[in-house]
């Protein structure tokens, strides 16, 4: 029986799971960044990433080199994130959390609608940052871009760790999220810390979009919607305040979803997401703050 089992297929599905999880991880990190620096879940993060992808496409289409377009898009997205925070989030900074959540929901439609209006709904493609040449190891195929995507996520996690832990700006940003009042007293301009958080998240989102589009072989305005779902799930699984957790959670989720879809017939293609979400819920009930999250303690 052991010999009849297709081990190559298992290994291939795991590798594919890691590849798709790696794509989700890039957006999951952006979600963690925004949550950690502003305490808000940004429902529009995926659409902002999609918008950045279109900007990158436009730049490439107008003759920019790939890397030129890449970094210019990063810069534009950072500025865009800051601008959005100043324009739309700042007025509701002191409002209840749900108000801000609703604003991000409104932003979802605004950004999506803007992308549909500015660029026609054709299917397009974006070049890949990494080589897509297939590599075969013992019958299991993957490509450099799969590895590259995961590497980028981990690299971002490392950079964020350094930033939040060791730089003045990063520390101020964390303080602003945790205790805005006290932070203001110390002289930090809390408002601008939030803007910084939005800018960073938007930039990370742009990276996500520019990696996702080639990984999924084509893109249009709907590109990031399924990704947002999986990224949320992965981030929650890993712990919404842990960038590393978001990456690992996303990778695990990718493998889980693929293995379920491949080996559990009853799950098929209709139930792979619900079952995966149920698994996450199960994990949360055991570890309410996610795998790597910091548990919130309450003493009564």
């Amino acid at each position, binding site marked *: 029986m052991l010999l009849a089992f297709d081990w190559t297929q298992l290994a291939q599905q795991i590798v594919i799971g890691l590849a798709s999880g790696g794509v989700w991880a890039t957006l999951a990190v952006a979600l963690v960044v925004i949550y950690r620096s502003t305490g808000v879940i940004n429902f529009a993060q995926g659409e902002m990433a999609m918008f950045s992808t279109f900007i990158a496409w436009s730049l490439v289409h107008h003759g920019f080199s790939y890397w030129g377009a890449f970094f210019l898009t990063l810069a534009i997205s950072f500025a865009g994130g800051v601008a959005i925070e100043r324009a739309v989030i700042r007025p509701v900074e002191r409002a209840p959390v749900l108000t801000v959540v609703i604003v991000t929901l409104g932003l979802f439609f605004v950004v999506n609608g803007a992308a549909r209006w500015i660029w026609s709904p*054709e299917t397009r493609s974006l070049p890949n940052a990494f080589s897509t040449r297939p590599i075969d190891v013992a019958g299991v195929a993957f490509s450099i871009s799969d590895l590259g995507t995961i590497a980028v996520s981990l690299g971002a996690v490392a950079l964020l760790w350094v930033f939040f832990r060791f730089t003045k700006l990063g520390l101020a940003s964390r303080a602003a999220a945790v205790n805005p009042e006290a932070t203001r007293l110390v002289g930090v301009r809390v408002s601008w810390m939030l803007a910084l958080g939005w800018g960073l998240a938007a930039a990370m989102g742009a990276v996500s979009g520019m990696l996702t589009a080639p990984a999924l072989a*084509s893109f249009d305005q709907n590109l990031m*919607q399924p990704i947002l779902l999986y990224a949320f799930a992965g981030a929650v699984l890993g712990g919404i305040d842990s960038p590393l957790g978001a990456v690992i959670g996303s990778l695990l989720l990718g493998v889980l979803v693929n293995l379920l879809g491949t080996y559990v017939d009853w799950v098929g293609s209709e139930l792979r997401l619900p079952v995966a979400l149920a698994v996450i819920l199960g994990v949360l009930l055991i570890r309410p703050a996610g795998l790597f999250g910091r548990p919130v303690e309450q003493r009564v």
Partner: protein
Amino acid sequence: MKRALYLLVGALGALVLATAATGAASETGVTSSQVLIGGTTPLSGNASAYQSVAKGAAAYFRWVNAHGGVNKRKIKYVYKDDGYDPSKTADKTRELVQQDKVFAIFNSLGTEQNLATRAYLNALKIPQLFVASGATTFGKDYKQYPWTMGYQPNYRAEGTIYGRYVAKTNPKARIGVLYQNDDYGKDLLAGLRNGLGKKAKLIKSKQSYDVTDDQVQSQVARLKAAKVNTVMLFATPKFAIQTFVYAQKLGWKPRVYVNAVSSAANIMGLATAGTSKKQTEGSISLVFLKDPTDPKWKQDPGTRLYRSIMKKYKGGNPNDVYAVYGMSVAHTFVAALKKAGKNPTRASIMRAATSLNVKNDPFLLPGMTVHTSKTDHFPLDQAKLQRYHNGHWVSFGGLFRVR
């Protein structure tokens, strides 16, 4: 069940007749200068790319109106947003019928969306014309729903063609199917089985995906693992392109049958650019429209007319093959309206729609006839096979019946 429908027909029919009997006994939605028709289409949400079906048709009607209209009447075509939600479709269609008092429902988009309103419209004897959906039921179930008609070649018939072709040309194939797990994909699959007949066991693997999935790499890998050498690609463009790309990544080059929805030249172009000419070489598909992104139609008068109408009457993005479809269906509606006589009624336009024989549609393949009869509610049931060679589609064989 039937009794209840007759009850509804009786009561509501009387209501309709009562409101329609306004002096000159003209039909609802028809005045001396205008015919009002309406439909639903997704104008918002993530299916909103399909609105070009409505917008292409609207542009065509504007052109017809600018050239005198039909029997001295202009066609006013109103389309409302249902966000691809069948509950909203039911609501907006009722609004078109009860509030706007349209002559007929035309070109509403979506399978579930049109199914939601079919019983209502048929009970009220309101034409549900040229439903924008490839589901077979809209043409097949005319005995129960005589006021409903589809338009495009239906999915089941398309799948049957592919099945027959494989059975004939490659009887030892190992077939794998990637299909969307909704009516569209399942209809194509059912057709494939039907076309293969006794050879249905050539299907070695069936992999489905959900339209909300992000990618199908896992499914493609499973097809390869089942040692499939012929892939039936019953998927929408995003996933069709992915199939080629992921197959190449796995070092696999099966013969691919691409369903018509995903076969537009620009889609295949993206697939080729993302892989290689070799990877897409030999793919097979059906075609019945003149694809505006296919260079072979660039100088064609029909395509030029299409482009000029799109430009002048602001029909949207001219590279969108859905807009071509919209113009074709509008062209057929105009033909039916002409045939319905100087004072069209709902009954007369249904009679016209079930006796069509339109040969000069500029947007369909040359030689195609839009043909219907009392027992044939499939207006478009012809197509050509085409093979992808060196980065272009080349049609082969002649026009044949897609049944």
